[in-house]
């Protein structure tokens, strides 16, 4: 069932080095190096992309300039083509930590607006996806008729329907969180259905035969075998689903020119050329996405540990 641990240890090269080599062999140092490298490219890119605007500005105003001035100006423009990381950090600091979270200018407020739609849609999508999977696994007709469509739906850009759902529901008087979470819901229920069907089917013939020798009922096979066996599959698909649920909520904020939410910040930023605002919204969205996935994996680890799935 498991590899013998001694084997893998034996394969590792005998390292004579101390702590430093262990760090080098591990993940922390390489990841930090790559991040540092990306940061350097970013700063260089900011100078490169912003320089043409700056230089033409200098020439128009007959300003004496040298490389040092160009670099420092390029990293401090108000509407740069590419803002420097520290500018974004400043903006995030300003809009996340120094504004009251109820203020319309607080990114925390906007992030919460998007998160609430994400979570609501995710919850309903998960529920729907799991119920559908249970049906597909137990009813052959559903498996044959519905499942091909669920799989095929993975190949089409369903996100394209988002604006229509927003506008149509808006016409019916539904605005705010609900329409966005409906988009999130239908985006994430497909992968959950597929993952859960896989999981509920994961017990092999041997284990199903075993239950048959006990004359177990369908319900007993479901609760004692299929459900526990599906847990790893469920969480794998939940992690995918919550990430796209966030994408759905953000895209759902674009079409109607919503006033609140991360998508609204992106849209407003692009209307007024506020690149720093766009970038900080983007960074916050990324952090949010990672946090949400992290949250799911923490729950996963707790559940798996409780069930005894080992590492």
């Amino acid at each position: 069932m498991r590899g013998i641990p001694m084997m893998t240890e034996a394969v590792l090269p005998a390292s004579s080095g101390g702590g430093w080599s262990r760090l080098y062999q591990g993940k922390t140092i390489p990841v930090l190096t790559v991040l540092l490298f990306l940061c350097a490219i970013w700063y260089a890119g900011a100078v490169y992309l912003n320089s043409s605007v700056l230089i033409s500005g200098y020439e128009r105003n007959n300003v004496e300039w040298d490389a040092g001035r160009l670099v420092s100006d390029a990293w401090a423009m108000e509407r740069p083509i590419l803002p420097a990381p520290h500018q974004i950090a400043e903006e995030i600091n300003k809009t996340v930590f120094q504004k009251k979270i109820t203020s319309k200018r607080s990114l925390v407020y906007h992030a919460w607006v998007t998160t609430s739609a994400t979570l609501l849609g995710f919850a309903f999508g998960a529920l729907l996806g799991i119920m559908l999977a249970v049906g597909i696994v137990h009813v052959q007709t559903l498996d044959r008729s519905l499942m091909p469509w669920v799989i095929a739906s993975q190949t089409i850009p369903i996100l394209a329907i988002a604006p229509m759902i927003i506008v149509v529901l808006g016409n019916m008087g539904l605005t705010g969180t609900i329409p966005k979470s409906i988009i999130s819901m239908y985006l994430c229920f497909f992968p959950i259905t597929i993952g859960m069907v896989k999981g509920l089917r994961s017990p092999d013939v041997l284990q199903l035969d075993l239950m048959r020798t006990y004359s177990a009922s369908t319900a007993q096979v479901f609760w004692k075998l299929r459900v526990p066996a599906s847990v790893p599959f469920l969480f794998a698909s939940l992690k995918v689903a919550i990430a796209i649920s966030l994408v759905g909520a953000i895209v759902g904020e674009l079409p109607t020119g919503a006033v609140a939410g991360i998508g609204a910040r992106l849209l407003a930023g692009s209307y007024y050329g506020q690149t720093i605002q766009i970038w900080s919204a983007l960074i916050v969205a990324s952090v949010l996405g990672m946090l949400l996935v992290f949250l799911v994996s923490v729950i996963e680890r707790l559940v798996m540990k409780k069930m005894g799935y080992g590492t």
Partner: protein
Amino acid sequence: MIGFLKRDWTLSGFLVLALVSFTLPVGSGEGGRLFWTGEMGALILGLIGVSIALFHQWRGTDGPAGALLVSLGVILGAAGLLLLIDPAYEQGTAGPGLWLYLLALGLYAWRAMDLLSRNATGKRALSLLVPALFGMWLIYVWQVVTTGFQVPSVLLPSPVQIAVAFAGHLDILAADFYQTFVKSVLSGFVMGCGAGFLVAILVDRIPFMQRGLLPLGSLVSAIPIVGIAPIMVMWFGFDWQSKAAVIVVMTFFPMLVNTLAGLEATSHLEKDLMRSYAASYFQTLLFVRLPNALPFIFNALKINSTLALIGAIVAEFFGTPIVGMGFRISTEVGRMNVDIVWATIAVAALAGSLFYGGIALIERSLTFWHPSYRGKT
């Protein structure tokens, strides 16, 4: 009698409900009530459907022939209702007979799919027929409900209206397809996947970089990358270049991470064998590691095919020249031309599944040896 009913409850349910619905008005309004008898063609088709159900319940077989016969009955019964809808609609509103019959037809269709799927194991044509019938049933219910309930086309146009819009705007749809799919998606897809692949090959030689990039790669999957669309529109302008740029960024990381994982998939045994032949790095790469990585690479290509279309369409929400599928969707929704929006979505769905299907076909021909394909013909 009980034995007759008991043979299959769904079909018995259809028979009872359908016969009751024949006695109820299908439409009512200023012109009085309309019954099935008002539309002879509809009544005949409906009765043929019912007779097939009766015959099947009485002495039909559960084999493929019986399944096909019941399917035919469903289709005829459904066609009968379609004939009835327009006159029923003219009366004012659809009546209880129509809804009861639709419900009955649902049971009938379920029985047909049930019979078909029982016979579908190992038979390709039948196993394709089941989802086809299901899809047709959904579109049919959509059509009947939207016309019967007189749903305003601004909310949900009927399939027929969408088809009409599709046929009437072929030139626009073709131009949108060319702009979004051929120009943006294909170029962005090729550049993004190519870059991801090349970087993976380079990084693979430097284990340090690999250890640094792999954890980041999996983090990136949690990021809503589509959000860079407004920035790319600022940088590269409204035309296809900005959309391609979004796609490059979206498709780069899945390709990078999958290729790296694929290059790791070669077993020690296989590598040791190449070592024993004193094969060079590139020979090992070409003969052993790349073939082993193919399933992973194709996995990335398939994921990316969907991501690329999403990226292009969403990026067009932020600004385009006046052509493109995303542009069409956002403007026509604003103008309440929802039928054109649906037609565009149909084009997107078709393009997406054909794109994916094409990649899957190439995958099948190149990785036929992989365990996931072996044994399938």
